[in-house]
């Protein structure tokens, strides 16, 4: 069992580190993890869930705003982008945040194609992140189920 735990832990570590290395996550995510403790053991998962909900909602808003037959209200799109940028930066969703920044510029420039492209990408990115994090959480669960503890991963 210990061997299994050790193996899982290593897997977990590697996976987590790779997420940072690939730019999915940044420091803020680390901060979030620090907030998780016995008092709130699922804090990170909770927050991330909220975040993904927000993503869906905001992306929807943007889609609608971009889809108006007639003049597109870029400010509306921009407003949602801004919000998404805020949430993504709060959870450490680095790629999403980066995309939002670009997205915002397109909004400001009233660049329709650019906005549409960004929207697509944001959609992809957040889902990719969702998948990755899900896998990470699954690993955590497996570790716990195997009787081990989820290791603290130091990203440096």
């Amino acid at each position, binding site marked *: 069992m210990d061997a299994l735990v050790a193996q899982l832990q290593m897997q977990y570590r590697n996976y987590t580190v790779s997420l940072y290395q690939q730019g999915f996550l940044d420091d*803020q995510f680390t*901060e979030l993890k620090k*907030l998780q403790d016995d008092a709130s053991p*699922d*804090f990170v*998962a*909770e*927050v*991330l*869930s*909220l*975040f*993904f909900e*927000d993503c*869906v*909602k905001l*992306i*929807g*808003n943007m*889609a*609608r*705003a*971009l*889809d108006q*037959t007639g003049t597109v209200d*870029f*400010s*509306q799109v*921009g*407003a*949602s*982008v*801004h919000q998404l*940028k*805020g*949430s993504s*930066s*709060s959870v*450490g969703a680095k790629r999403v*945040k980066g995309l939002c*920044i670009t997205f*915002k*510029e397109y909004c*400001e420039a*009233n660049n329709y194609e650019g906005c*549409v*492209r960004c*929207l*697509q*990408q944001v*959609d*992809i990115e957040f*889902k990719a992140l*969702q*998948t990755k*994090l*899900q*896998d990470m*959480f699954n690993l955590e*669960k497996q570790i716990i189920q195997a009787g081990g503890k989820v290791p603290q991963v130091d990203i440096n």
Partner: protein
Amino acid sequence: MTVEQDCVALDQFPVGMRVLAVDDDQTCLRILESLLHRCQYHVTTTNQAQKALELLRENKNKFDLVISDVDMPDMDGFKLLELVGLEMDLPVIRVTHGACDYLLKPVRIEELKNIWQHVVRSRFDKNRGSNNGDKKDGSGNNEGVANSDPNNGRANRKRKDQYNEDEDEERDDNDDPSSQKKPRVVWTVELHKKFVAAVNQLGFEKAMPKKILDLMNVEKLTRENVASHLQKFRLYLKRISGNQQAIMANSDLHFLQMSNGLDGFHHRPIPVGSGQNVLQNPTDLGKFHHVSSLPLNHIDGGNILQGLPMPLEFDQLQTNNNKSIIAGNSMAFPSFPTQQSSLPNNNNHLVLEGHPQASPSAFPGHQINKRLEHWSNAVSSSSSTLPPAQNSNSIIIGHQFDVSPLPHSKPDSLEWNTQNASSSYSIPFCDSTIPLTSSMNTNPRAFYRTTDLDSNANVQPGVYYDSSQMRQSGNYGPTTDAMLSSNPKEGFIVGQQKLQSGFMGAEAGSLDDIVNSTMKQEQSQGDLSEGDLGYGGFSSLRTCL
């Protein structure tokens, strides 16, 4: 309260301080709550400014501090601050997010640990009374506070500085409406862009103020203005190059926020008429800002540097009030999340938020300028200024509310509600009849669906529309509240189903649950759609399902 008492209070303060946190972004709110708990503050949260107000009104002594996001697109966060300040004399800390802001979001725990200092500081200053000469002490104070936590990084300091700035400005106007302040340059985004363009053209190392000035070709901008701005710019660049946390997409904006200097020409875009103006500026104890002379009655063309037709807008704004408040909200520029309906409230309070609108409204300019002003003032002066007459913690960081006796009236709340109502983006969509068919077919906007994690999905753009169409036709069927409320989700859900099917185990993680639930929604929707609508586009929906 004497200084000694304050000191004692200081010791006791951090733990158990009662904070009300307001942020419409649930993610951020949750994080904020957790952070505050870590600091051992007593936290109450709400994602609605309205609710926050109610809570505050319920018992004015219930909270020691309010932390609020002002960028709340769904509601007037700024207004909340205003009202809070006016009615309750509570210190409010503004939280803003976005790369062009104070980098307060993501909120860090170190910063939160220090927020109580704002509360105390206000007491100190209050004790000093409303004399104008305390810049030195103020600075000392501020420095002390800022330095006490070097790890805070720029953000915290910015926050405080901002606050100081606002304070200064407010008091300035309020206390001394008749004194003429020297007009100051406000480095607006456009102006700064020109500046940066000029610098780049000249070459950063070689850029000289005179040349920059020439290249910029802005009327009434002096070489001194440019020189001081350049200096700040250089400092800023140096600072950010060393600071990893400067994740600013738009360094220009960031810079502006941070270092809008007291360049000589600082124009105050607020009609000061009676001195009761912007709520955002608490009565200025007349520190540094005073000295720097903010123009009080400047509604005229003095505002040249903003590049916006200010005078015009201003007049509109003006209508009858001295009480126009221009909410120098967060700095966001065009894409500022604001409510579409920030309209001049001709009653008493005019609250505008930084508007992204392309419309040449001077408001955004004003607000931005205002904020920039604040920033620069704060940066330069770093004096702690506080609204004089506030009993408890009147530390206002960010937007301050006018301490002067503005008729704090109902119209505000009404307007707020109106704004709320009209500014909700999602609603119109649901209600409107969008020619979905046409859009589906003619619309190359496949943004919604063309690319997916799962390449097999191949969901058509129409998918999203289909869902909405469904909604519109009232075929809700198995629609749950969740579905209804998550309109935007529906489109995604369809695609998501496909996407998630890969690893949607029966695991019970939170993420899993969410995805599962969305999948279920999808499922039912999928069924619904197949049965009810005969869209061409649906075939693609079916395919991917």
